[in-house]
Structures are given as structure tokens and as C-alpha cells.
């Protein structure tokens, strides 16, 4: 990737809003909920997963500022493919810590005060990883097909 700061933020928002939402919509009914069987469509679960998605998006914009700063130390001013994947670790960990500490606002009663059960961790892990992996792959190739100017303009969409 050869992002500019503006392009980073635009790409982040576009990817999470479009693909993040679609995948969240599809995956939420399949995530473990500590009960036997598949949970299916449930408004409370959707509320949790979409709030987590929004948290990743908001924090992500702050992360992008840091990544942009790190990028300045690189002569090429590029963002290696690998970095795009491994930043899932720091970003995922931060979101999980905030969830565990009960610092993410808007979650339904029962999961809003942290101290979460282990199935919740696995549900978060699967949800987060699947979305991240899909977006990472999409950003590193297929995105160039519909948007021919995207790669030449630092990842800007508008």
C-alpha cells in the first residue's frame, strides 16, 4: 500500500462501513453465545457486534495517525503488506481490553461492565479476525478492480 493520511482514513471508513457491515450482518448469527446450537438472528447480538465494529472504526482512525507517523521514517513512504495484517494484533488487543474493562459505551446490560466470559472472547476473536482478514485481502488486490484511481491517489475514494 502507498497511502496518504487522507487516503488511509477514507479507505478505513469505506472498508469497515461496507465490508465490515456486510460481514457483521452475516456472521453475527453464527458466533458462539455460550448456549447450545446456533444463536440465529437476535437484535441484542447485533447490537453488540455493530458497536464493536463502530469501536474498531473510531479507534482505527486514531491508529491511522500513529501508522502515518511511523510511515514517515520509511524512505519509500510505503506501508508494507505485512504491516496491514499484523496491525490486527494491536488493534484487536486494544478493543478487547476496553471491552474487558467495560469501557465501550452503548453495550447491552450484562456485557457492559466488562469481566466477560470465555465464549464472548471467542465470538469477538472470530468476528474481528474474519472482518480484518477479508478487508486486508480486499485492500491488497481486488479493490483496484472497481476503483482504478484508488491506488494512484493514496487510497482516497473521493
Amino acid at each position, binding site marked *: *500500500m*502507498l*497511502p*496518504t493520511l487522507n*487516503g488511509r482514513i477514507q479507505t478505513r471508513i469505506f472498508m469497515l462501513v461496507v465490508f465490515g457491515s456486510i460481514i457483521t450482518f452475516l456472521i453475527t448469527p453464527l458466533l458462539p453465545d455460550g448456549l447450545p446450537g446456533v444463536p440465529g438472528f437476535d437484535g441484542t447480538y447485533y447490537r453488540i457486534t455493530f458497536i464493536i465494529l463502530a469501536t474498531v472504526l473510531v479507534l482505527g482512525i486514531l491508529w491511522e495517525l500513529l501508522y502515518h507517523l511511523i*510511515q*514517515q*521514517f520509511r*524512505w*519509500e*513512504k*510505503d506501508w*508494507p*503488506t*505485512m504491516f496491514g*495484517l499484523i496491525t490486527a494484533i494491536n488493534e484487536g488487543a486494544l478493543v478487547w481490553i476496553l471491552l474487558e474493562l467495560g469501557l465501550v459505551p452503548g453495550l447491552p446490560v450484562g456485557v457492559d461492565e466488562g469481566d466477560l466470559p470465555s465464549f464472548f472472547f471467542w465470538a469477538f476473536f472470530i468476528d474481528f479476525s474474519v472482518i480484518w482478514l477479508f478487508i486486508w485481502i480486499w485492500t491488497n*488486490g*481486488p479493490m*483496484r*478492480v*472497481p*476503483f*482504478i*484511481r484508488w*491506488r*494512484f*491517489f*493514496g487510497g482516497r475514494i473521493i
Partner: protein
Amino acid sequence: MIEPTAASVVPTTDPSTYLPAQPMPAGDLTDEMLQTDFWTDELVAAAGIPIVDVPFVTVGSGIGSFVTVDYLRIAGVPTSQMRVLGTLDHPWQTYEYLTRVSQIPRGERLRSDSASRPDNIWGFPSYGFAEAMRTFNLKLLWGLFSEPIFSDYYTPKAGQAFETMEREKNRIDYDQMLVKGLVRIVRRRYGGGYFTILTPPEGASATKRVAFRSQYVHLAVGYPGLKFLPELQRYRTEHNDYRHIVNAYESHEHVYERLMQQPSTVMVRGGGIVASRVLQRLMDDRLLHGAQTNIVHLFRTYYHGTNDGYGNEEDPRPGGGKTRIFMRRRGENGWAYQGFNYPKSVWGGQLKKQVRGLEGEQRAEIYKRMGGTNTPWRKLWQKQMNQGRREGWYQVLVGTVDDMQPNGERIVNHVRTAQGTVPVEVDFVIDCTGLEADIAEHRLLKDLLEHGGASRNPTGRLNVDRNFELIGTRNGNGAMYASGATTLGGYFPGVDTFLGLQVAAQEIYQDLAKRKFCKRIGPVRSTIQWWKWLFGSKP
């Protein structure tokens, strides 16, 4: 005005219809034409030059022309609306010649990014991904994932680039648009548009010249020419010796052949990618095939640590001080290391954006700062050169050559170093410095500067705008564009590269779409066209 749909290849004016009393002119340029900046239709017809109407011509017929018509074909322009004028049989002909003689035959790897595919405007799938899938090579996939941190940048094999270009050339019916011949001159037409004068191969047409009357002209004529270092040129001419002193960009296989037969010493001059490739060839021949070659490598600038285009940390630079912490690259053993011929983000990221907003001196300054001769750090080269240093057959000198004298079959170079002048006797000199000639050495460009309204940018090349329109050449509803090496120094730095040609082609397509010459490539069209590309069906 030229109606784009009215393209024809039929001469529209027959001079004999209105010049019955005079003998038929030979169809050549007249003095009057050469002295006139704007040509009328009558002026051209009176010279007996047949006129071909076509809305868009691209001059050059190399990769620059190919990539541009590829974009326009994908943007819905039929082959009948475009002509490619030039001397090449296929777009990669000159490129393949230059890479082959500078030691990148088809099986070797170029210095080009995985997603820089002249045959594919989307750069997806990248060369690397395609190669990994075709050969099911997990190591290669790992390389693509971890470059440039844990592995060298992936670069495609030259052969892969040529083969895929051939496929795309056939897909877009390139040959239907190709008109062979040498373009002599482009002049503005009175009333709008341009006349492009082509000299077809002998016997191919009834007249010496043919004029293409078009609304749009695109120039992609490539490097104006190569220049030798003055002392090398002097030696070659004075001693009539073209065998022992060679340029890396001319065929010099005889040097390697001699080295296989006889232990010799070779001086390599230059510190760029070509020097790296030539050194690898010399070292491969020594290490794998038993040549007994000693190498003297002469650097003009010796990099020993972090650097930028102004040189090493301690070298003087405007404003004083060292390299900026945010703008420095690695260097060692004489070389400045950089993956590609520009910092990667000039093709789409921060540096592209930055330069796009700079004018005049400021722009020249950033070009200077990110410039300087450099080469990629590759594991194999490091290994070979370390062995050469250890075993004493690879030696480095820093300086310039004051004088060269023959001594029997050998050449004595008087090298001026920091420690004084030393004589260095060698059997061959390979010049890898790659000096480029001035654009005015190219007849067509010289004429455009003198008669076409074109001008030079802060680095002396053709002055193009952000959309690659040649500034000062607009004529009525017509527009002239240029891309490639001749436009270096403009608002976009990486012009003389695969991806640079595509960046330029995209800007040109975009401008032509605004002028309603082609359709817009929006997300839907783009996706449909990509699938067509994938399955090899016509655009």
C-alpha cells in the same frame, strides 16, 4: 473540425484536382511548411502529401503508446479511431533490446513492482500473485507478504512482462492500429488539431510522407538517446576502438566471451541498477563458469551510510545539516540502496501527492533530494560481492577519469582519487553510467520546442501539466499529450517506468473522457472490463 466518427484512411485531398498545370509534387515536406508553425489543409495538400483522418494518434509505438491505447480501448474507443505511429513491430521491442544487452534477458528479473503490469491497467492480479498461483510457489507468496522487511521486493521476470503484453496486444487488436514508419514532425493545424507527418518504410506508400490529421496527439518517444561519458567517447573516436570500451546499453556480448577465454581485468563505471546487473554477469561467469576476471569498480560517489540525493550524511546540502531523519535511505560499500528507481510512494502515495503540488525550484529540489544513482539491495548480489572483496577479485575505486591511453591491447585509465591520480590498466571498460541525451537531440521534440509551442520544465524535459497535456501546444479543440522519459521533472516523478506510463495513461484517458472522446471507466465498466481481461475477450 474533425468529426471523430468520420475517421477514414482515404486521402481526402487530391492535389491534381486543383493543380492541373503543375507537375505532381513528390509528397515531401516543403520549405514553406518547415517555416510555418500552423499548417492549413491546403498547404499540406499542395505539397502532395496524402492526408489520413483519424481522431487520435500516438507517436512512438513503444510501451508508452501501448499502455495509452490499452486504456482507451478499455474506455470504449474502437480501433478505427486511433493510430499508433512508429517504427517498432511490437511495443516492447526497444525495451527488450535494452534490457537484454544490459544483462536482463527474458529469464532474469526486472527492477519493477509486482503490481506494475503494462498489460493490465488494474495491476490485479499482480505479477507476483499470478506467478505464485501458476507455479504453486509458497515461498514466493511468503516473499510477497513479507517484502521488503524480511525478503527482497518481488520483481517479475522480463519474459513474463513481454508474454503478458503480447497477450494484451492481441486482445485489444493493437496491430490493427499500428502504422509503421518514422514520425518526422508534428505541427498544429490551422483551425484546430494537428498534422503528424509520417515517413513510411520505402515502398509502403506512393509518397515519401503521409500526414495524419487528428484532434489529439500523444507522444511517447522514449529516451531521446544515450550519451557516453566524454572521456570514453573521445577514446573511442581517437583510437577507433569500439571493442574494449563499451556502453552497457549497446550489445557487448563479445566482452563476456573474451573474458571466458582469457583472464582479464574489467573496469565497471557507475553505481546504478545496470552496474549491478553487469557485475552480476561478471561474477556469475567467474563463480559458475570459471572465468578468471578481475573487476575494478569505479564509483564517482561512494555511499558509506545513510544518504539522500545530495549524497552521504556529511555532504553539503542546501540549508546545511545532515540528511533529514524522515528522508534518508540506506547505503553501504559505495551503493545507495532503494527497491525501485524512485521511492515507492511516487507511484501513488505521499511523494506523488507532494510533488503534484510543487512548482519550479521546490519541485526541482525534491527531485534532487530523492534522486541520486541507486540500486536495490539483493541477497545474491551482496553474497557475490562480499566473496569478491574477500578473495580480492572485486576492487573498488572512487573518483573520476582524467585521461585514457592505450597500452598495447590494454587501456590505462588515469583515475583522479582523493589520494591523487593513479594509473589503472584494464582490458575492458564497461560504461554503466547511463547518461541521457538532451530532448533537443530528438528531431521531433526539437521541432516541437521551436515550432509547436512546447516548453521545458525545471529539469529541462518536456513541460507537461498534471493531466500530461503538453503545456503550450493546445490548438482549438485539439490537445497534445506526452508521457514517458521525455516528461521527467513534471508534477509526477516516476514517468519512465511501467507504472508511470499507466499513471500517465490514466490521466490522459480521464482528460479525453472529459472531452467526450471515450467513456468513463467507472466501477461497473471497470469490473466488467476486468473480467473480459481475465477471460481474454475483446474489450
